[in-house]
């Protein structure tokens, strides 16, 4: 078995607050292989973005990694600080954020921004970097790339800006791309274009992708495997088709059932009662038990089991025949 591109082991992130320490990410482990797209899905506050930020070293203090290890291509990267992390960021790990307007510098032309990234990370001359910048823009499907290289971000539409951001993330040829809600700010038709682009580029280059989103449809169409997060913990991890069609964790099951498509023709949607607990008021035992239809005493007392010996972090996983 080859080493995975990214390997996260028991990662925990803590934020000290006046009301005590909260854990937005709590003992999360997953791997991403070369050329694989791992979908990380969950509702707001589930810790999915926080885990991505921990990998690329962009946690805002006082948030910090309190336990666990992050390995990138066989090298441990979580202890890296300052300059060492900066060299890794952009070179080995590319990042695509939700809002393309705020992730581009409005005062620099997109050509300058691309060339700067290339020059920082690759041993090439200025003119070679500019040539590569044009090539990168062509690759992400920006028409007239050679002319538009001197344009500023505000001269592009939302979809085109997100293409520029993808070009920026991929121009130093990273082995891992973290895409944090890359299409949430975009319209449906543009979203389809961006998703198709991301899939094509990663397949061609063998880039590993961590796709963070709340949209189950995007996950189903894009990801190879999916990690479902709830209240900072991994609820379920597995092949996307298995997890989405035959979920074992009651939370995944509820999430899938509450999408309007699943209840097509029914008058009412399936609903999960309540909402995700606040980080300061985490229940004892399994974090999902107050909302879980099949919670038992064990769930209220013991924290949910680790994923190591199963697909779902649940004391009573739903088996195919039990799930409707």
């Amino acid at each position, binding site marked *: 078995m080859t080493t995975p591109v990214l390997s996260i082991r028991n990662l925990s992130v803590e934020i000290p607050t006046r009301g005590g320490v909260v854990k937005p990410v709590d003992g999360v482990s997953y791997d991403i292989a070369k050329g694989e797209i791992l979908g990380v899905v969950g509702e707001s506050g589930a810790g999915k973005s926080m885990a991505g930020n921990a990998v690329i070293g962009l946690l805002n203090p006082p948030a910090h990694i309190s336990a666990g290890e992050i390995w990138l291509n066989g090298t441990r990267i979580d202890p890296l600080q300052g300059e060492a992390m900066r060299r890794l960021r952009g070179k080995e790990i590319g990042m695509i954020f939700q809002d393309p307007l705020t992730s581009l510098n409005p005062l620099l032309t997109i050509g300058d921004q691309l060339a700067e990234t290339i020059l920082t990370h690759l041993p090439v001359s200025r003119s070679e970097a500019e040539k590569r910048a044009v090539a990168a823009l062509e690759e992400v499907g920006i028409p007239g790339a050679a002319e538009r290289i001197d344009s500023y971000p505000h001269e592009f539409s939302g979809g085109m800006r997100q293409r520029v951001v993808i070009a920026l993330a991929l121009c130093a040829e990273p082995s891992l791309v973290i895409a944090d809600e890359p299409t949430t700010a975009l319209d449906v*038709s*543009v979203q389809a274009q961006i998703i198709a682009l991301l899939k094509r580029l990663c397949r061609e280059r063998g880039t590993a992708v961590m796709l963070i989103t709340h949209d189950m449809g*995007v996950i189903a169409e894009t990801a190879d495997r999916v990690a479902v997060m709830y209240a900072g913990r991994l609820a379920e991890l597995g092949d996307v088709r298995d997890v989405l069609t035959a979920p074992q964790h009651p939370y995944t099951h509820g999430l899938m059932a509450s*999408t*309007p*498509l699943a209840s097509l023709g029914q008058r009412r949607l399936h609903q999960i009662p309540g909402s995700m607990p606040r980080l300061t008021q985490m229940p004892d035992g399994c974090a999902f038990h107050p909302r879980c239809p099949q919670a038992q005493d064990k769930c209220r007392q013991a924290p949910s089991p680790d994923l190591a010996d199963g697909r779902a972090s649940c004391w009573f996983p739903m088996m195919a025949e039990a799930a409707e």
Partner: protein
Amino acid sequence: MNAYVSVKALTRIFDVSKPWLNRIIERRQKAFLTAVSEVDFQIEERTTYALVGESGSGKSTIGRMLVGLLRPSDGEVEVEGVNLATETNADKVAEVRSNIQMIFQDPYASLNPRWRVRDIIAEPVAARGGETEGLAERLLQQVGLHASDAGKYPHEFSGGQRQRICIARALASEPKLIVCDEPTSALDVSVQAQVLNLMSDLKDDLGLTYLLITHDLTVVRHMADRIGVLYLGRLVEEADPKVLFETPKHPYTQMLLDAAPRTDGFGREVEPSQGEIPDPINPPSGCAFHPRCPIATDLCRCDRPVQRKIGDTVVACHHAT
């Protein structure tokens, strides 16, 4: 069945010109943005009419004109047979107005953070001098919260609970029509299901009529009785949900349905359509969709298609069959 809301040739043009001095110095013309262009539709009583479209399609502008937050540039909106923009009888206007309420997208921005929930909910009634004793408590229970929540402030609630408070406020004046502008777009999936179920229940219990404005096709399919698809301020197709989703007639509707990600679309490879919504200040000639349309001809580039009826579907396309 009679039409509760009737919208005829509704048009809204915004003046987006630069200030006059800039126009003289930079030798620029006045610029106008046509947000809504000759839209017709009717909403039957006790039904849900959904307007779908991408950003810039004018769906929110129509909603705002319906509740009277914006005045139409041309055309008319009739609610209960009264044209609110031109009616001169103030009593009549006030009566119809009190039957219309609105729910906004962002439950964080649409509640005054300095007011208690009780005052927020009672305000639509208090503003007209009505009796508000116990009103907030009763409505809170109706939307699935506790009566004791009335003394709290908005920040003490989660997003889904806040949207319930917004719904309670909209119900306070006992409206007949509620305009819901992206009511669940800011909410998570599991909370969205709760709010949509609440909206369906209230519609049945209170006999409400909804205008649902959203970009989410799955929500529309679940909630709507009739759907209007907007593109660049024009109504391109109107049909019942089953018909629209199974046999979309307009190429834009087809594209939209094709592009929407599906939870059962494992490994689906879509060939996405090219291009984006054009600039509404300089819309394309003829049919606004022609630059992106796979079946566009010269006719589409010159003539704007009129609405035609095909079966139960109303479609504005030269080539739809």
